[in-house]
């Protein structure tokens, strides 16, 4: 069958294209041009396409498959980079990889694939798509170290039905690189990509400063009890639970302090002792259910951030408000803006974005 493969130029998606072509599918490669690479790297005269696009084309040439570069700069700037800066400006911590998967990758590439008469969209994500009794299910990858199911939690059931993740069963990255070597792909030894693709060298504050200057304006660091303990260089630099970057406000006598909240309106970073950061409840908006939305409170496991083991919880779906209300068995740290992903064992059953306490949901979930 004809399959569209999203090729980033990295080893994972290159191997996906190679494996599917080897299996005899009609593979069509597509690489998203998401930002002006020359501008992002602040190199005058550099091509708008980065090395990754060249690598993807080389791999496609090697495999003998058609390959297209898709200009998605505008939509990426609006929906991913814009959301990134806006989220920081609200005093929250964004997950741009989920926004990207949700918009330019799955929403748009699934539509394009269908327009091109493809039967599926394949990506290099480490997750498993399992055909279940009620349709496609999203499961954690076989390799727990590589599992990306958290970042795919906004994929809709319709998109999931159309998606394929051929690397989900790979035991580890070494196995993927071995396939790349066997297929003669030049990217076999290419290092993994790091951090956020559109932020060179992890310096995201200058990007946020350009788009939302208020988010990098100085303000007070305030103890939860109201005392002003110091100053900060912009709320965008702080995430709930963070201990670094607080300067003199790191300690209250002998007691270490952490970010307990960000008050964007007053440009304040609120700090408190570790114990008081934890909460037993969380509110989740923009919920994407990968099961029929539960009418009764549901026992499951939730992941509150990408690098954290799932924790036991009970989730109640408030359909009228479009919010999932999470009661954690053991208190945890909730950073607004991060994704909360719901698991039943290895299976992702839903996900959404953590709301700040008392916030009003901006985007009601689709019914």
């Amino acid at each position: 069958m004809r399959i569209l493969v999203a090729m980033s130029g990295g080893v994972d998606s290159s191997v996906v294209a190679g494996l599917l072509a080897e299996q005899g599918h009609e593979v069509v490669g597509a690489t998203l041009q998401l930002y002006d690479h020359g501008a992002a790297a602040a190199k005058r005269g550099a091509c708008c396409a980065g090395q990754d696009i060249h690598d993807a084309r080389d791999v496609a040439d090697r495999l003998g498959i058609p390959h297209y570069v898709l200009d998605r700069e505008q939509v990426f700037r609006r929906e991913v980079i814009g959301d990134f800066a806006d989220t920081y400006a609200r005093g929250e911590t964004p997950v741009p990889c989920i926004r990207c998967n949700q918009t330019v990758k799955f929403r748009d590439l699934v539509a394009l694939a269908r327009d091109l008469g493809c039967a599926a969209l394949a990506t290099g994500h480490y997750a498993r798509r399992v055909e279940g009794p009620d349709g496609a299910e999203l499961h954690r990858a076989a390799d727990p170290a590589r599992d990306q199911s958290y970042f795919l939690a906004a994929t809709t059931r319709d998109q999931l039905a159309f998606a394929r993740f051929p690397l989900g069963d790979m035991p580890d990255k070494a196995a993927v690189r071995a396939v790349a070597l066997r297929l003669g792909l030049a990217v076999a030894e290419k290092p993994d990509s790091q951090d956020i693709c559109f932020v060179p060298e992890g310096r995201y504050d200058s990007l946020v400063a350009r788009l939302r200057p208020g988010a990098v304006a100085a303000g007070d660091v305030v103890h939860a009890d109201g005392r002003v303990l110091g100053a900060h260089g912009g709320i965008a630099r702080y995430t709930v639970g963070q201990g670094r970057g607080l300067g003199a406000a790191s300690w209250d006598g002998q007691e270490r302090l952490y970010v307990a909240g960000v008050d964007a309106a007053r440009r304040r970073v609120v700090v408190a002792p570790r114990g008081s950061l934890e909460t037993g409840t969380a509110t989740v908006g923009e919920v994407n259910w990968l099961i029929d939305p539960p009418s009764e409170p549901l026992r499951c496991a939730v992941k509150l951030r990408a690098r954290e083991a799932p924790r036991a919880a009970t989730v109640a779906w408030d359909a009228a408000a479009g919010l999932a209300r999470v009661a954690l068995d053991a208190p945890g740290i909730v950073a607004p803006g991060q994704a909360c992903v719901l698991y039943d064992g290895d299976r992702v059953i839903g996900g959404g974005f953590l709301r700040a306490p008392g916030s009003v949901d901006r985007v009601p979930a689709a019914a």
Partner: protein
Amino acid sequence: MPVLGLDANATEPLRPEARDAVLRALDQPGNPSSVHAEGRAARRLLEEARAAVATAFGAKPQDIVFTAGGTEANALAVRGLAPGRRVLLGATEHPAVLRAAPATAETIPVLPDGTADLAALEALLGAGGPALVCLMAANNETGVLHPVAEAAALCRRHGALLHVDAVQAAGRVPLALAGADSIALSGHKMGGPKGAGALLLRPGIDLAPLIAGGGQERGRRGGTEPLPAIAGMAAAALAARPEAAIRLAALRDAIEVGVAAAAPEARFPGRAAPRLPNTTSILLPGVAAETQVIALDLAGVRVSAGAACSSGKVAASHVLAAMGLGAEAGAAIRVSLPWNAAEDAPERFVAAWSAMRDRLSRRAA
């Protein structure tokens, strides 16, 4: 499935006459600048090519500067003629011209049919000092022919210089460019090999080189001349017969009739203006040009959209935007018939295009 190549405005298939000329030139060992016998033989071949291009376009051999291609010919003219002048650029010029011009350049708008707005040009010329006007003979995306002779008369009246990018027009329509001060040509757009172009200068026009080097081309373009590419271009220029326009225009019109019959919503930007015989722009409302180009490619039909960046991404068309098409500027593809287009090209194209359109409209429903 045999491929249907309809992207001649990107590059024409090599003409057999050009191929022969390239092969002959490859066997010529000398450097045209060398003093010895082999050098003189190479020089003879170079000057024969120059004479052929001069004959084909009604220029004098000494006023022809060979370059590495159309982009360089345009850049040589714009950079060489712009100093001390205001630069006025047609709104639908090719990036080869746009990006050679200074940032202060002003834009000559086009009318909704895609042709340059001569009244606006006259107003611009009357508003300031000596100018360099850049107006392409034929647009690469729509095939629209600009009123270059009229623009030349206006320029003469206002003491302005006129540079004409004739890359798409040369070999396809007769060039009536007597009033132009410089004319850019590209070898491979006439069915020659890639790697050679030429700038035709009005007698008496002089300009500074972009590349000084060894002073070749009468000091206007340094570097050893790429003899095979130049010989191929010259052979292509002689072989390209604008009479073929009648046949190509009939094929192009058949494509438009077939597309319009299959899809009443389809439109043809530029159709109301005089056009190149081989070119049509086909707009399918609501469908990204990128999707159309890819879908047709997967069906074995080669077309293009906008101006392809070196990365291969399809950028929105500034040409169609200048014609006032707004958001729909991103929904048109360019279909350009090659000199050797087969008689069944319209039938095959319309079948593939209709199949694509039917699938996409089913999806949208």
